[in-house]
């Protein structure tokens, strides 16, 4: 394959991925979508969407940040243990912990409803959605942190800290955490992005009072006029695209740091 053929094909695929994004958000800021951009730009659709669906955005942010805090608190210690232990048990635990990624969200969600749908007011609470997001996102945090832990000389650094007289909390906080900050950042960006966009589980887990952004979007796609749906999609992209860009930046940085070491 010659260079120009390759470049042409690559550009074509890039266009396939990016063009629909532009086409989809344009009606959301266009005064009259049938006349096109010549009819002028407007924030009318955005304001209308915000008035009706602003709550879904806030709820999604609330769930995403809560998911982040929990996956950090639960996932980082788990990754540390998995990195420190080489045995069969540790590998089995690792395999188990990443299983929720392999199972379709709709199956997990149905299981959660069967198991806990009748427990108190949980079914009506946003916490029910949070539980689903934590189960689904935890493996991504564990993997991101584990990858960094395995790429560094964890055992050596910890032994060196011990030789200097550091107790376990001292070396965990002073040596290990600062050196896995990159992995925690990458994992955090992934978790927030996935939680903000999670639909497969959330569609089953939500109630009319706990609608998240993607659930609202699905509703808009079937029920609202194109301008509103597009404006709503634009709001979603405004949230998610910076996160995805930050993820690309963090991955690039990790590569460079890895190359130096």
């Amino acid at each position, binding site marked *: 394959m010659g260079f120009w053929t390759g470049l042409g094909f690559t550009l074509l695929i890039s266009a396939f991925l990016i063009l629909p994004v532009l086409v989809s958000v344009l009606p959301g800021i266009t005064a009259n979508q049938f006349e096109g951009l010549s009819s002028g730009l407007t924030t009318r659709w955005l304001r209308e969407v915000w008035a009706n669906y602003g709550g879904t955005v806030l709820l999604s942010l609330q769930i995403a940040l809560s998911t982040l805090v929990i996956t950090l608190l639960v996932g980082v210690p788990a990754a540390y243990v998995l990195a420190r232990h080489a045995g069969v048990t540790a590998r089995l635990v690792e395999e188990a912990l990443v299983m929720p990624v392999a199972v379709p969200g709709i199956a997990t969600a149905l299981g959660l409803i069967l198991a806990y749908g009748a427990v108190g007011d949980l079914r009506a609470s946003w916490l029910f959605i949070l539980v689903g997001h934590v189960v689904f996102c935890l493996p991504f945090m564990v993997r991101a942190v584990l990858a960094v832990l395995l790429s*560094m*000389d964890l055992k*050596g*650094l910890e*032994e*060196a*800290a*011990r*030789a*200097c*007289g*550091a*107790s376990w909390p*001292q070396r965990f906080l*002073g*040596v290990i955490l*600062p*050196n896995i900050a990159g992995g925690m950042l990458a994992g955090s960006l992934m978790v927030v992005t996935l939680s903000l966009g999670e639909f497969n589980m959330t569609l089953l887990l939500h109630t009319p009072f706990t609608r998240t952004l993607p659930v609202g979007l699905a509703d808009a796609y079937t029920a609202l006029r194109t301008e509103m749906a597009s404006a709503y999609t634009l709001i979603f992209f405004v949230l998610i695209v910076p996160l995805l860009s930050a993820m690309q930046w963090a991955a690039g940085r990790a590569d460079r740091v890895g190359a*130096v*070491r």
Partner: protein
Amino acid sequence: MSVAIKLRGCGKTWPGGTVALHPLDLDIAAGETLVLLGPSGCGKTTLLRLIAGLELPDAGGQVLFDGEDVTRLPIERRNVGMVFQSYALFPNMDVAGNIGYGLRVRGIPRAEVARRVDEMLEMTRLTEFARRRVDALSGGQRQRVALARAIAPRPRVLLLDEPLSALDARLREELRQEIDALLRSLGITAIYVTHDQAEAMALSDRICAMERGRIAQIGTGRDLYHRPANDFVAGFVGDTNRLGEELVRPEQLALHPSAEGEWTVQRATFLGPFVRVKLRDAAGRELMVDMPDLATPAPGARVEVRRRGPA
């Protein structure tokens, strides 16, 4: 400050059943520099890690510091300093941060930490690099940071695990001399692991040669070189010729050209400071002789071999 170390019945068996170390006794005097010498897999690093407190000996083994039983005391409470083969510098801290770490975790006041760090920086000639990131240092500089970090908290014992093996030959020689001077001036009990016999000779008060999880011989460098306890030790600390029951080093022999000589020169290899001559006799026995590069005999020449003065 420095302590005498006693090991009593210290063995180490890995969970899979491999014996890394057969139960052994070892006495190290206060202020002494003991070198653990041997090929990889001989148990020298395991022995060092037992003394450090990074490994627990098999049941019955005891580690004593000045008579105090420290067997169950983990390394972080043993007050030892350790230099690792990979240095294991903390990438999240600069040079001064690394050196001061052992003082900070002991809760020593900030001003005192700063004073001691400055002192260590000066001693290891790193003052101008105090704020440098450790991944921006050369190998030799990293080595000195590791050393300064280990001795900054004034440990009772200094443990060095092949500290120079990651460096090239010239730098290794230079740093070996620095470490030697440092150990002498500190007067600290030091245990130094290496597989390099020249390093062992240069640094040690005594050498403990190890073979397959056992101590093969303990003694001064001269003891090991001139009176090796067995073939393993003899072979490990230098090349040898076997003359009957006797071991003779190549540089203890001298050649004399002689038409009636019983040895024939096979090959003469120029090695810089000396020439190594390989000889063979009619019976097929082989002999190595080291001599200065003066009047080097040509292959095929017949020579007599005599011993130089007494060893």
